[in-house]
C-alpha cells in the first residue's frame, strides 16, 4: 500500500497528509480537552473532541472509517482510558495514544500492554502532537505487511508490535521517511500480488472494517484452538472459520492482537504473581485496588491452580484474573471458560466476586447481565474478552452494538436550563443500564452540569462546552446542537462570533440570554451586566448588534464598533466630558461600577491606564465624530471640535487621577483652540 493509497483511504484533506488527519480526542477535563483540541487544530488535523469515552466509542462504532487516530486521557470517570483503548484496538484497529498527567512508568507500561501506540504526559506540548501521524502510517503499513507475510508462518507477531513500540524511533520523520516507506510499500505490493486478488481489493479500495462480534470471535478462537495457538496461521484459521467476507488480513490482524493479549495477560499474571508472593499484595496501588475487591482471595486461589497441560491456556487463565481489573466479568469469564478444572463452586465464588467487582466499577454491568453471560460460559468454548463484558452482554441482549447508539440525549445538550438536563440524563441512564451496553451512554457529566456558571461572549460557549462534554466536530454539531453555541466552539473561531466586528454586542446579546438562564455570573458577565445596570438608557442599546452605541444625555458616542465591554465601560467613564460635571460623572459611574461587581473594581485600579486606553479608543482610527449626532448639551456642544477633545484627553492622561476643574478644562481647550 503506497502512501497515496493511504491518503486515499483517509477522509478530509488527504492530499497533504498528515494535514487533515482525523483525530478523535477524549478527555473528561474540559480545560485539557479544549487545549488538546486547540493544539491538534494547530497541527492542522481534523479534530473531533468529546469528554465522554462512551460517546467516543459510539462515534467510532457508528462509522469505522471516520477517524484515523484516537487520543484519550487515561483517567476518566465514565470509562477507564485503558478499557477504551482495548475496545478501539480490537474493534476498530485504530491507533490510540494515551494521555495522562501521571507519568508513572507503571501506567506507561500498562498503556503499552493494552496496545497503546504512544503515551503522552500532560500538559501536552505541540511538538509531541506534530508527530503522532506516524502511528497512522505505521499501522496501515503493518496491515499491508500482514498481507504479504501471512503465508509464511510465525511472522505475524513480528515487527508490528502495536503495543510494543511506545515512543517511536522515527521521530524525525520527514519526506525521506515517507519515501523510504513508499519503497517498502512497493516491495510489499509485489509480494502482495502473489497472494492474489485479495490484496488488490484491500490495497485499492476502502475496505470496511470488520467488527469482531462475539460470534465471530468465538469461531475465531475455536479455530485457533483447533490448530493450536502456536501453530495457528491466518489462512488456516480463516478456512476453519468459514466466514464469508472475512479476509485473511482481518484474521491476521485479529490473531496478532489475540496473541499480544495472551502475552500480556501471561506477563502481567507473572508479574502480579510475583508481587503477590513478595509483597503480600498490599504494596502498589494496583495491588491496593485488587485487595480492595472482595473475592480477591478467590482469584488468588484460582491463580494458584494454574498448572495446566496447555501452557497457553494456563497463562490465559491466570492472566485473565489479574490482567483486567477493569473488566471483572471478562476476567472471570476467562478463568472459567479456559479451564477445565474449574469447579462449579469456583464459578459461584467468581460470580460473587463479579458482583462485588461490579459494584467497584459501577460503569460496567448491572448484575443481571453478568449472570446471563455467565451462564453461557459452560456451553461455549472460549471467550476472549478483548475489553469488556460489555461485548458479551450486548450479544446476550441480542443487540450487538445497536444499543450503544443512544441519541445521547442530545436535546438536553441545548441547555435551556441546566437544572433540567440532569433529570433527563438520569432518566436516560436508567434506560440505558437495563437495556444497553454502556449504561452511561447518554451521560453528559451530570455533575458538572449543575454548577456551571454561564459566562458571556465566547465564554458562554466555553461553559456550555464544559458542562456538555461535547463533540466539537462540525457534522455532529450541525445536527444536534444549538447553533449559537457549539459552532463557535469549533476551533474557538466560530464564524458567528468572529465575523461579527462587534464582539461586544454579540456577547451582550448572548449575555442577555444567559442572564435569564443563570444566576451565577462570572466577571465577564458581571462587566456586561454592570454596564447595563449603570445606565438605563443604555440598557437596550447593549442588546443591539451593530454598534455598541451608547446613548446618554450627556455623552457622545459613535465609534464603538469593535470595542470590548471593558472599553465600553471605560469609555463611559471617560466620555463624560461634559464640561459641567465631567469629573463628577466619572466618579459616579465609577461608584456604580464598583458596587456591582467586585471584579470589575479591578478596572478602577487601572483607571489611569484606562484613561490612556480610553483616549486611544476614542480615536481608534475610525470616524472620530465627537461633536455631532445625538449630543444633547454635552461638552462638545459647547463648540469644541474633535481636536480639542483630543488634547484635553491627552492632558487628562497626563494628570492621572488628578481632579480637573471646569476651569482647567476650559482653559486648556481654549488655549489649544486658539492655536489652531
Amino acid at each position: 500500500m503506497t502512501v497515496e493509497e493511504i491518503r486515499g483511504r483517509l477522509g478530509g484533506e488527504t492530499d497533504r497528509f498528515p494535514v487533515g488527519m482525523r483525530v478523535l480526542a477524549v478527555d473528561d477535563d474540559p480545560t485539557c480537552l479544549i487545549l488538546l483540541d486547540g493544539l491538534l487544530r494547530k497541527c492542522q488535523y481534523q479534530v473531533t473532541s468529546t469528554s465522554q469515552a462512551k460517546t467516543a466509542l459510539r462515534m467510532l462504532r457508528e462509522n469505522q472509517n471516520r477517524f484515523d487516530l484516537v487520543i484519550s486521557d487515561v483517567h476518566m470517570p465514565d470509562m477507564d482510558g485503558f478499557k477504551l483503548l482495548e475496545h478501539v484496538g480490537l474493534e476498530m484497529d485504530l491507533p490510540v495514544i494515551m494521555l495522562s498527567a501521571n507519568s508513572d512508568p507503571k501506567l506507561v507500561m500498562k498503556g503499552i500492554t493494552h496496545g497503546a501506540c504512544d503515551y503522552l504526559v500532560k500538559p501536552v506540548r505541540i511538538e509531541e502532537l506534530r508527530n503522532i501521524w506516524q502511528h497512522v502510517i505505521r499501522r496501515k503499513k503493518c496491515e499491508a505487511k500482514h498481507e504479504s507475510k501471512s503465508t509464511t508462518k510465525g511472522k505475524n507477531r513480528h515487527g508490528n508490535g502495536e503495543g510494543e513500540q511506545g515512543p517511536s524511533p522515527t521521530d524525525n520523520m520527514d519526506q525521506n521517511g515517507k519515501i523510504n516507506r513508499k519503497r517498502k510499500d512497493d516491495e510489499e505490493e509485489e509480494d502482495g500480488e502473489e497472494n492474489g486478488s485479495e490484496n488488490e481489493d484491500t490495497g485499492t479500495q476502502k475496505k470496511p472494517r470488520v467488527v469482531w462480534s462475539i460470534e465471530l470471535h468465538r469461531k475465531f478462537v475455536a479455530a485457533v484452538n483447533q490448530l493450536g495457538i502456536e501453530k495457528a496461521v491466518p489462512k488456516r484459521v480463516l478456512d476453519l472459520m468459514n466466514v464469508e467476507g472475512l479476509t485473511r488480513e482481518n484474521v491476521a490482524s485479529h490473531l496478532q492482537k489475540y496473541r499480544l493479549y495472551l502475552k500480556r495477560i501471561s506477563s502481567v499474571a507473572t508479574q502480579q504473581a510475583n508481587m503477590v508472593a513478595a509483597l503480600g499484595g498490599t504494596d502498589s496501588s494496583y495491588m491496593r485496588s485488587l485487595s480492595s475487591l472482595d473475592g480477591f482471595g478467590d482469584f488468588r486461589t484460582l491463580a494458584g491452580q494454574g498448572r495446566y497441560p496447555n501452557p497457553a491456556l494456563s497463562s490465559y487463565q491466570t492472566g485473565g484474573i489479574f490482567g483486567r481489573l477493569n473488566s471483572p466479568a471478562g476476567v472471570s469469564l476467562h478463568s472459567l471458560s479456559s479451564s477445565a478444572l474449574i469447579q462449579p463452586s469456583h464459578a459461584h465464588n467468581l460470580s460473587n466476586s463479579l458482583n462485588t467487582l461490579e459494584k467497584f466499577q459501577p460503569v460496567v454491568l448491572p448484575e443481571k447481565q453478568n449472570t446471563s453471560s455467565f451462564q453461557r460460559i459452560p456451553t461455549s468454548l472460549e471467550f476472549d474478552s478483548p475489553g469488556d463484558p460489555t461485548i458479551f452482554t450486548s450479544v446476550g441482549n441480542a443487540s450487538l452494538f445497536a444499543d450503544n447508539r443512544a441519541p445521547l440525549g442530545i436535546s438536553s445538550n441545548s441547555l435551556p436550563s441546566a437544572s433540567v438536563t440532569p433529570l433527563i440524563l438520569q432518566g436516560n441512564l436508567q434506560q440505558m443500564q437495563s437495556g444497553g451496553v454502556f449504561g452511561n451512554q447518554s451521560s453528559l457529566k451530570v455533575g458538572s452540569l449543575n454548577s456551571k456558571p454561564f459566562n458571556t461572549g465566547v465564554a458562554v460557549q466555553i461553559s456550555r462546552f464544559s458542562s456538555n462534554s461535547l463533540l466539537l466536530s462540525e457534522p455532529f454539531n450541525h445536527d444536534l446542537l444549538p447553533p449559537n453555541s457549539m459552532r463557535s466552539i469549533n476551533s474557538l473561531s466560530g464564524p458567528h462570533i468572529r465575523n461579527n466586528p462587534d464582539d461586544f454586542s454579540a456577547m451582550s446579546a448572548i449575555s442577555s440570554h444567559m442572564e435569564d438562564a443563570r444566576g451565577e455570573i462570572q466577571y465577564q458577565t458581571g462587566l456586561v451586566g454592570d454596564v447595563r445596570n449603570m445606565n438605563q438608557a443604555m440598557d437596550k442599546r447593549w442588546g443591539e448588534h451593530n454598534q455598541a452605541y451608547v446613548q446618554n444625555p450627556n455623552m457622545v458616542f459613535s465609534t464603538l464598533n469593535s470595542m470590548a465591554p471593558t472599553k465600553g465601560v471605560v469609555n463611559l467613564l471617560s466620555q463624560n466630558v461634559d464640561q459641567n460635571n465631567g469629573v463628577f460623572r466619572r466618579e459616579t459611574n465609577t461608584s456604580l461600577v464598583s458596587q456591582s461587581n467586585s471584579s470589575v473594581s479591578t478596572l478602577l485600579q487601572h483607571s489611569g491606564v484606562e484613561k490612556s486606553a480610553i483616549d486611544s479608543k476614542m480615536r481608534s482610527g475610525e470616524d472620530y465624530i465627537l461633536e455631532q449626532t445625538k449630543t444633547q448639551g454635552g461638552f462638545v456642544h459647547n463648540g469644541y471640535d474633535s481636536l480639542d477633545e483630543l488634547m484635553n484627553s491627552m492632558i487628562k492622561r497626563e494628570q492621572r487621577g488628578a481632579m480637573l476643574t471646569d476651569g482647567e478644562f476650559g482653559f486648556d481647550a481654549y488655549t489649544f483652540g486658539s492655536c489652531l
Partner: protein
Amino acid sequence: MDKSLLNFISQAYMDRNLQRQIAYTRKSLFDQGYLDEQFIQLEDLQDDANPNFVEEIVTLFYSDSARLIRNIEQALENNPTDFDRLDDFMHQFKGSSSSIGAKKVKSECTQFREYCKAGNAEGCIRTFQQVKQEHATLRRKLETYFQLARQSDV
C-alpha cells in the same frame, strides 16, 4: 495643525503606554512564578482565528476547577478521610492547572498529593488552603492582565 497628525501621535503614545503596561504585567506573572511556559503554549494557540483563546481557556479552567474545589472540600470534611478519592480529585485539578501553566497552583497540588499519600489529613487541609489561595490569586492577576490586554484589541 493637522488633526490627523495629532491623532496619530497621541494614539501612538497611548498605544505604546498600554503595550508597555501589558508586557510588564505579563512578564511579572512569569517572573513571580505564577505562570510557567505552558502558558506560552496557550498564547501560541491564540491567533486571528482564535483571538481570545487564552482568556477563554482560563475562564473555562476557573469554572471547572470551582467544581473540583467543592468536591475536595466536601471530601475533606468526611470522616474518615478518603485519601484515594482526594488524591483522585487533586490529580484532576493538578492536570488542568498544569494545562494552563498555573505554576504555583500546581506545586501546591503536588504538596497536597504528598500529604494524601502519607495519609496526613491535617496536612491536606492546610495545603488545600494554600491551593485555594494560589488559585484565587492567580485568577485575580489573570483577570487584570486580560482586561489590560483587551484594551489593546481594536
